[in-house]
């Protein structure tokens, strides 16, 4: 395999067959608004830069195309916060477990407000 194929990021899809394009306006789920607001605040305060977020998102590799838009940006934000030492993986896991207990969420991937915010 050439360098060309190896180093092409998952975001760089210009000229590739697109397939059908979903043009439905999905709106934003509650968690997406929360996550987007957090990203916005951290960007404006200079904690993270948009170029860093893009780099972290591109670093998702094959996952990039499987995840939804706000999942990609939130994952990138998580990567940068860990990278910059704002919290550790262990601290994040512990906090997520604590909040999950507070809301009594059964499934790891389910949001406590998912029913209300359903598309």
């Amino acid at each position: 395999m050439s360098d060309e194929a190896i180093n092409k990021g998952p975001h760089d899809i210009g000229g590739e067959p697109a397939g059908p394009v979903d043009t439905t306006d999905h709106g934003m789920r509650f968690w997406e608004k929360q996550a987007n607001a957090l990203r916005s605040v951290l960007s404006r305060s200079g904690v993270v830069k948009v170029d860093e977020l893009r780099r972290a998102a591109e670093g998702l590799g094959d996952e990039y195309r499987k995840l939804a838009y706000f999942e990609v940006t939130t994952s990138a934000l998580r990567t940068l916060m860990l990278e910059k030492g704002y919290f550790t993986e262990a601290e994040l896991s512990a906090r997520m477990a604590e909040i999950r207990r507070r809301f009594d969420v059964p499934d790891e991937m389910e949001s406590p407000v998912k029913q209300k915010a359903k598309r």
Partner: protein
Amino acid sequence: MRRQTEPATRSSYAPAPGHRFNVGDRVRIRQAFPPGHRRTPYYIRGKRGVIERICGAFPNPEELAYGFDGEPAKVLYRVRFLQGHVWPGYRGPAHDVIEMEIYEHWLEPDGDKP
């Protein structure tokens, strides 16, 4: 349809002292494939175009992406390409163009016609 050749308002772009290329210069996009965060799409690498305008000088996003300050700033150009040159088998009008903003370090002089 009105053909607009000049921007309606003055550019608010940052000045770019010491720019290497001028409007109208023929350039070729570097055919390089380095790893990392790169701001030049694959499909335009190796293609030939003409400088349409000098956008200004900006901190290098390819450095900012890794936590550096992006200094010294890099000059950004808007480059105009013929669609028929960029896309093999392009079926639109021969004068169709695509314009893309590309940093100076991705450009090299090109004497040949695109």
